[in-house]
């Protein structure tokens, strides 16, 4: 089981790869769209990469609730 810090750092790696986000900017309170400039197509890539990395299933209707990095960490922590 990955810790919250490990999940956050894993998401940071994905965000860097997919959207060129500086991993140092990735923190739980950051909004994907407003703070990290991740657009909707990149978000799809982030979700698919996170599913693979953390062995979770993130259904499309759940993705809209993942506004911040913290939301994603909560979901992954609860479901992986």
């Amino acid at each position, binding site marked *: 089981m990955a810790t919250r810090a490990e999940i956050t750092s894993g998401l940071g790696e994905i965000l860097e790869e*997919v*959207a*060129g986000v500086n991993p140092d900017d990735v923190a739980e309170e950051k909004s994907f769209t407003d703070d990290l400039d991740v657009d909707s*197509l*990149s978000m*799809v*890539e982030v979700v*698919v990469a996170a599913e693979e990395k953390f062995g979770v299933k993130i259904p499309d209707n759940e993705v809209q609730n993942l506004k911040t990095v913290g939301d994603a960490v909560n979901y992954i922590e609860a479901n992986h």
Partner: protein
Amino acid sequence: MSNVDVVVTGLGATTPLGGDVASTWDAMLAGRSGVSPLTQEWAGELPVRIAAQLKVDPSEIIDRVKLRRMDRAEAMGVISAREAWADAGFAEGSYDPERLAVSYGTGIGGVLTTLGQNEILEKSGPRRVSPHTVPMLMPNGPAAYIGLELGAKAGVRAMASACATGAEAVALALDLIRLGRADVVVAGSTEAVVHPLPIAGFASMRAMSTRNDEPEKASRPWDKNRDGFVLGEGAGTLVLERADHAAARGARVYARLAGAGITSDGFDIVQPDPECNGGIRAMKMAIRDAGLTGADIQHVNAHATSTPVGDMGEIKGIREAIGSHPILTSTKSMSGHLLGAAGALESIATILALRDGVIPPTINLDEPDDRLDLEVAAHKARSVELRVAMNNSFGFGGHNVALIFTQP
């Protein structure tokens, strides 16, 4: 003949000979070949294991994250368009974005994306297919990306006429400016299909050279021992502008685009008409459009791809439409055949020949075909003061395009 003058004010290219126009032109004048062996693992089983691949990879120029969203053809188009736009030197406020259009094509489209994503689909399932797939494979993608990059708002037109695409995109730009639909048009074409499927397809048609052991000698237009074209990749871009618009902003003018002729063969889906009837009509149409006569055409950058039938048909056509006086060259002997991008790159070579008074060579013309009865700048660049020159492009589907450039 139109009373609206259209001029060329910017050039850009990324090719197997160089990462920009200057290095590509230098290589052409030096008679260098851009053809090399395909060292990729997939090349092993192909009958054709040579190609003219880009000299400078797009990853050296375009940001990694941006590049993930672009097909290679799109990236090359954007790179050459950036160069052309910078070369044209538009100052802030010297043009109206709502009067700036793009006319840009590709012969085959984002085939590397299509095939690459299909592999992912088969191997890992539909969920793993990139959400960027559609904008990467769509044939209007290069035009749209260039429009986005330059903020062009007078329409982004996407051309597709196989190996005549680049020339037809330039011809459309001429129409757009003459019809008053735009002041400035960024025109050209891009092609990136160095992949086993397109190569196998062309090879199955027996259209490609299999001179695998001598890559640099494989593209040999009009030579007795030619055995097909050599696939090339690359992109070329021209900035075309209404002459008075260019003059008002004090732009440097390379040449005038004086006329264009477009015809279709109605003969066969892939075979060129051996009598070159469609090509003759296109050349004559361009000459009329430019208000010139055949006697005025001093130089032709020919389509001549190094295939047995096509090369000689065009010779017949040039003789009939223009006469026996023009000096020909086929820069494909060096760049390989850039398919959809050929007409764009070869327009650039034609324009620079006018500018510098020098015709780039046709390399590998060691034993001219007996039927070659026109003069070719064989082996070495030829210094000739030029006032008027033509570029021919013909494509699968029976497309024929002739463009005429003159001194400004």
